[in-house]
Every structure is written in structure tokens, then in C-alpha cells.
């Protein structure tokens, strides 16, 4: 009987410990933003890694995403004879949902995984301990610049995603399938409101904080893993960072959408 309750209690206990540890880690990261020395240089470096180097990838993904939306929307709407609404379909689905979510998921794979691996390797090779020995706060040195950089980069990349996606929808809808060009852009500007745009950016900021916190946390505590040690732990930490971040992105997306719609 005790075993039954223990089997029930242990996962809940572990989950609570995990959530608490992520929350404390996040608060430390935010708090150290103010105390961090040379934060501007280190943040710029992280914006380069998270933002600039992901720009081409985001442009590519969003172009194809918009083109697919244009095709799918066109062949669905033509059944109802309302092809004119293609602009609304493409722009609203991009700005409200696909832009923030896909950007965050791509950045988890592109930037989040490398954060975990980098910090994880520093942890198992005792470099983080070395930082602490030298009285350099490791959270403020490693985590805070990444948090700030993602708060800046995620919304900007989301904006790029939305705009390029709309261009992609234009390419298939107007250039390829000969829809009325004026109707496409008129529908976009008449159906998108400031609330949609603002809500999309809010999502992007929340996703940025989530992804960075989870990925840094997994790397930072790579040595505390129960399932593996050493290099294997870094590999497992990277896997679980990407998985947890992706699940959290979609869960947070649902919560934010239901709150603001």
C-alpha cells in the first residue's frame, strides 16, 4: 500500500521541485540583470547568436509558411466563392498564432539547444564553479544576458516572420493564382487590429522568456540529472530542454490565447 502512494507521490514531488527550481532560477536571472557587469556587451553577443544568426532561417521558414497558407486558404475559400478573404486568413493566422509559435519553436531548436549544450559543457567541465570561485556570479554572467537578448530578439524575429509570411501568401495567392492584388492587401489592413498585433508580440516575449529559462536551467543543472552523468547528461539535458520548451510554448500559447481573445 505504501508503495502505491509512493509511486503516486514521487512524480508529483519531483514535478513540484522542478517547477520551483525553474521559477527560482528565472527570478535569479531577472534579478541579476541589474547587477550584471558588462551586461551590454554580453547581451549584444547573445542578440547576435539568437537574433542575427537566426534571421535567415526565420525568413526562409516564414516564406514557405506564408506560401502554404496562401495555397491552402485559396483552395478552401474558392469553394465558398470568397477568395477575397485570403488576405484575412493569411495575416490573422500568421499574426495571432503561427508567427509567435513557429518562431519560438524554431528558435528553441536553433538557439535554445545550443544554450543548453554550452552551459551544460561548462557545468561538467567545472567552468561554472571556476566562475563562482572567482566571485563572478555565474547566473548573472551566463543567464541574464540571454534573458535580455531573447526578450529583444523574439518579438523582432516574430515581426519579421509575420511580414515575410504575408509576402509569401502574396506570392502564391496573387502572383501564382491570380487573385486580385488590391483585395489581398485591403483585407489584410481591414481585418488586422492593434489588439492582434499587440497580442502576438506579448506571446513572443513570453515564449522568449520561457525558452531561455528552460534551456539555461537544463544546462546549468546538467550535473544534477539522475539518469546520466558527464557528456551523456549534457546530451540528455539538451533533449529534455527542447522537449520541455516546445511543450511549454504550446501550453502557454493556449493560456494566453484564452486570456486575451
Amino acid at each position, binding site marked *: 500500500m505504501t508503495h502505491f502512494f509512493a509511486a503516486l507521490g514521487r512524480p508529483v514531488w519531483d514535478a513540484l521541485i522542478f517547477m520551483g527550481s525553474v521559477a527560482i532560477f528565472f527570478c535569479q536571472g531577472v534579478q541579476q540583470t541589474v547587477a550584471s557587469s558588462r551586461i551590454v556587451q554580453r547581451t549584444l553577443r547573445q542578440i547576435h547568436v539568437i537574433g542575427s544568426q537566426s534571421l535567415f532561417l526565420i525568413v526562409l521558414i516564414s516564406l514557405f509558411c506564408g506560401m502554404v497558407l496562401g495555397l491552402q486558404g485559396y483552395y478552401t475559400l474558392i469553394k465558398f466563392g470568397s477568395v477575397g478573404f485570403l488576405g484575412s486568413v493569411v495575416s490573422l493566422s500568421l499574426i495571432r498564432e503561427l508567427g509567435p509559435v513557429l518562431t519560438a519553436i524554431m528558435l528553441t531548436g536553433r538557439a535554445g539547444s545550443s544554450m543548453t549544450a554550452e552551459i551544460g559543457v561548462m557545468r561538467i567541465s567545472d567552468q561554472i564553479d571556476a566562475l563562482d570561485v572567482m566571485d563572478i556570479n555565474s547566473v548573472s554572467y551566463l543567464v541574464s544576458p540571454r534573458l535580455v537578448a531573447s526578450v529583444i530578439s523574439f*518579438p523582432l524575429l516574430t515581426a519579421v516572420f*509575420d511580414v515575410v509570411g504575408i509576402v509569401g501568401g502574396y506570392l502564391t495567392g496573387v502572383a501564382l493564382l491570380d487573385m486580385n492584388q488590391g483585395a489581398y492587401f485591403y483585407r489584410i489592413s481591414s481585418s*488586422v487590429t492593434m489588439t492582434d498585433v499587440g497580442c502576438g508580440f506579448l506571446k513572443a516575449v513570453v515564449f522568449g522568456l520561457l525558452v531561455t529559462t528552460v534551456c539555461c536551467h537544463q544546462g546549468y543543472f546538467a550535473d544534477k540529472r539522475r539518469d546520466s552523468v558527464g557528456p551523456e547528461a549534457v546530451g540528455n539535458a539538451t533533449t529534455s530542454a527542447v522537449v520541455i520548451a516546445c511543450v511549454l510554448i504550446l501550453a502557454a500559447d493556449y493560456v494566453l490565447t484564452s486570456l486575451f481573445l
Partner: protein
Amino acid sequence: MNTNRYAAVGVFVLIGLLCVAYMTIKLGKMEVFNDKGFELKASFTNVSGLRVGADIEMAGVPVGKVAAIDLVHTQTQTTALVTLRFERDMELPDDTIASVRTAGLIGDKFIDVAPGGSEELLEAGDTIVDTEPALDLGSLIGKYAFGGVK
């Protein structure tokens, strides 16, 4: 950190900000520079389907948007008071007719404004008196089917 990296960050931030600006100002219609135009009010007996942000058209040309829809109670009846925001300067006579119309058979509702021939002009904030309520397709068909039409 070398100059190239700064340049890459700069290009990224610039492109991102341009996209943000395009979305907020062009798509989100954040009115930063626009102080032209004026507001009028019009009370309708029924504005079913009309939403804030719907177009105002004059001879088919969009001239503004619906800024607000409020419910007004008087002792005799309850009406919808619609605030019309015209985005360009124009002179409207006081016998102007505002009507709620539908784009196509099932399209969005919009306000059609037809200027009259009076000498007196409407001032900003005035109320348009002559209005036509939203056409209820269901009750029209009902009238036709059940013999309301003489």
C-alpha cells in the same frame, strides 16, 4: 567583440524594427500622424451585425470607420448610437442619410453615407437624423413567404 558582429546585430535590429513599425502603423492602424477628419453621430433602430471598425462608404469610396456603438435609452424607445469617424475633411449637409448596408449577400456590414441637398451643413459632433436600419434578410424572406407583402 569585433565590428562585423556589431554590424550583424545592427542589421538584425533594424530589419526587425522596420517589420514592427509596418505591422503596428500600417496593419494595426495605430494613428500616429493622423489628426485629419471629424466625428459625427447617428442613431439607428437596429445595427445588427455592425461592428466597431466597420467601414463608412460614400458612393462606394471608404471615407472612415465606425468608432463606437452605444445603446441609448429614452422613455419611448431604445436605439443604437453609432459614432462615425470620418478620416478626411468633407462637408456634409444636414439632410445626409446614413444607412447600414451589407457587402454582398453575406458580407460585412458597413455604413453608407449619402449626402442630401440642404444648404445647412453638419458640424463635427452633430447627429445625423435620417438613418436606415440594418436590413434583416430573415424577416424579409418571412414577410414574402407568409404573405406580409401586399
